[in-house]
């Protein structure tokens, strides 16, 4: 390894700022469009007036019906923001897992977060606890704990079997996930017939979105993003053999630990409010990698932006395509995401240069 490329790998602050700024700009445009369109038609001028009146920039000029006000401010806007945050969380943690496990099939739910979260949600659901107690909601808490517990268990198993072998962690995660799924199945089969709400939660979606959800996600996300972006250079070195990374002075064990915990926290908190939304965390990093190369300093932030944009648009489709009824957003992400993904794969194969 030449001196130059080593320096290239470890040099600080070489983030692709132009890409990031362009990406944020595109995400912003999509957000605006998503807030302007919905299953109830509200003229764009009124949407703008409503938002600015909340921000106290202008005095409210015209009289806007209070139901429009509620629709924009209490339903559509928090929903779009939550989709942005969840999409970004899933995109970044998906990219982290893919880098960590050096496995292109890795997604944020790989090591048991999803099954654990489902089990937690199912338990709360079937014990008939009121979902909410004051401003406090059990369903997200239980799914968060379930997801976290599953991953911790997998991690403990991999520690017991020696140092944190990533393959052991992966297999333990899959085993625990299968076990949790089995328990969920038993609970669901031996219970009250009307499982529709639970199933719709498991399919994922933003129909319950409220401002408080976004506020609860932000701290976890911020911490997760800071740690993961801080380790993006280390993720680059981890694409080599561990021997090389260690020779570069990287504490690989510590890096693994920090990355797993951060990515899992972000996923668990996202899952707890949105349910299981597939495909975003898998596809977003690949799209970024296919378009802009394999440097994790590029992949991580751009995966977040791509995931966020994709999910906002997918949710826009989910709530408008068959209006007044909603579709589970997971259906849209798979329906739109997979053909696009295949197209990119074929295109990359023809170029045949970047590892695909």
């Amino acid at each position, binding site marked *: 390894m030449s001196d130059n490329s080593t320096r290239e790998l470890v040099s600080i602050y070489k983030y692709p700022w132009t890409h990031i700024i362009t990406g944020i700009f595109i995400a912003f445009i999509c957000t605006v469009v998503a807030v302007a369109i*919905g*299953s*109830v038609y509200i003229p764009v001028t009124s949407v703008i007036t409503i938002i600015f009146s909340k921000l106290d920039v202008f005095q409210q000029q015209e009289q806007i019906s*209070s*139901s429009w006000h*509620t*629709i924009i401010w*209490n*339903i*559509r806007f928090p929903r779009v923001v939550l989709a942005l945050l969840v999409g970004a969380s899933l995109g970044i943690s998906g990219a982290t897992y893919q880098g960590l496990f050096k496995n292109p099939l890795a997604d944020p739910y790989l090591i048991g977060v999803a099954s654990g979260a489902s089990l*937690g949600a199912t*338990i*709360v659901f*079937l*014990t*008939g*606890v*009121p*979902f*909410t*107690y004051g*401003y406090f909601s*059990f369903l997200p*808490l*239980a799914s*968060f*704990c*379930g997801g*976290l*517990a599953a991953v*911790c*268990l997998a*991690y*403990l198993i991999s*520690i017991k079997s020696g140092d944190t072998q990533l393959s052991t962690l992966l297999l333990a995660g899959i085993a625990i996930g299968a076990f949790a799924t089995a328990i969920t199945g038993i*609970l669901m*089969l*031996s*219970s*009250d*017939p*009307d499982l*529709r*709400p639970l199933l*719709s*939660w498991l399919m994922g979606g933003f*129909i*319950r979105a*409220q*401002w*408080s959800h976004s506020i609860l996600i932000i701290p976890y996300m911020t911490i997760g993003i800071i740690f993961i972006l801080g380790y993006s250079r280390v993720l680059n070195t981890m694409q080599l053999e561990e021997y090389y990374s260690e020779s570069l002075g990287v504490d690989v*064990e510590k890096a693994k*630990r920090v990355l797993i*915990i951060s990515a899992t926290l972000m996923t668990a908190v996202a899952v707890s409010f949105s349910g299981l939304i597939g495909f975003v965390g898998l596809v977003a990093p690949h799209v970024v990698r296919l378009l802009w190369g394999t440097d994790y300093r590029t992949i991580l932030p751009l995966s977040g932006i791509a995931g966020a944009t994709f999910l906002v648009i997918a949710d826009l489709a989910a*709530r408008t395509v068959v*209006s*007044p*009824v*909603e579709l589970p957003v997971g259906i849209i992400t798979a329906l739109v995401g997979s053909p696009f993904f295949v197209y990119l794969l074929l295109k990359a194969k023809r170029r045949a240069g970047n590892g695909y």
Partner: protein
Amino acid sequence: MIRPVFLLLTLSLTLILSTVSCTNGAVPESPKLASPAPTPIPIPTKFYSQTMPATPLPAPTPLVNTEEITSPINENVGKVVHDTLPVEKSSEKIFVKFPLTILDREEKPLTFTEPPERIVVYDAAAVETIFAIGQGHRIIGTHSWVSYPEESEKIEKVGDAFNMDIERIVALDPDLVFLFYPTFKQELEKAGLKVLLLESVDDDLRKMANTFRIWGQITNAPNEAELLAKDFENRVMQIESILAPYDSGPSVFQDVGDLWTPGDNTLMGSVFNLLKLQNISHDVANYGQLSPEVIIDRNPQILISSNPDSIYQNSAFQELLPVKNNSIFKSNDDYLSISGPRFILGVEELALEFYPGLFK
């Protein structure tokens, strides 16, 4: 080194434990615990009184054009083949002539040479109906979600509603297996059993009367069934005639969980039509998850929910009238989730709740 992981693990486990201990019970151990406890309420019902806010219901507007009330029994619903004249009326007593031929859901004839003595009834509504006409002794098997009437608890359960122990059913050697969905029909028929599926009542509550009558014929208790069916029809007709002078009532939204809601072509949709409540999700096909934006926009005057707290605590719904008035109606799932003899009691509860001046 592994301390943070342990910390996280114990933290999350404690949280889970505290969450679970906050609940009123443990994880359901057996299906019986999870299913709703039966509350046998004798007919006629005593309605509980609930204070209604004075304002939310607009005074119903009298009808200008007299609306023709159609007969509550749809003649086309009759599924009994009459070429053998199975029913004879003589001095108000009805007799059933065997062999009896019944048309099933697919309009295929099914012939009974005598009333079946050993029936596996895979449907909570049919179990209730058969007990209501005094023929419960014929039932030898049900599924585990059946919990009414109390006597049905003693009957052997041969699976839950979606999983069927076919070997066990064959071992019981029934004369007839009644199903409410066709999934296992072929397997059971291959095992040499007689399987019956009746026309679904899932789109119109008035079809229930006919289902009662068919059970009366199959079990050779036509007079009891006729009483039950007539009582049902009278109750429906009474609601109809009380509401006949009025054009339309308030608008309604029913949340069966997570904003899933019945459309017009569902059983609940037909109840709303009967009660002249304007279902805001009339354009939903079967059941669908209604967009919250649309709920705000259509502004229902009545909310029915199995879990009112989830709506009270959603900040988006604070401006809705029933939320402001703290008047979301918690639906009686014991009645309204089973399309049997008690269903009409649930309908009457709704009528009393939403038209307190008109019904008593």
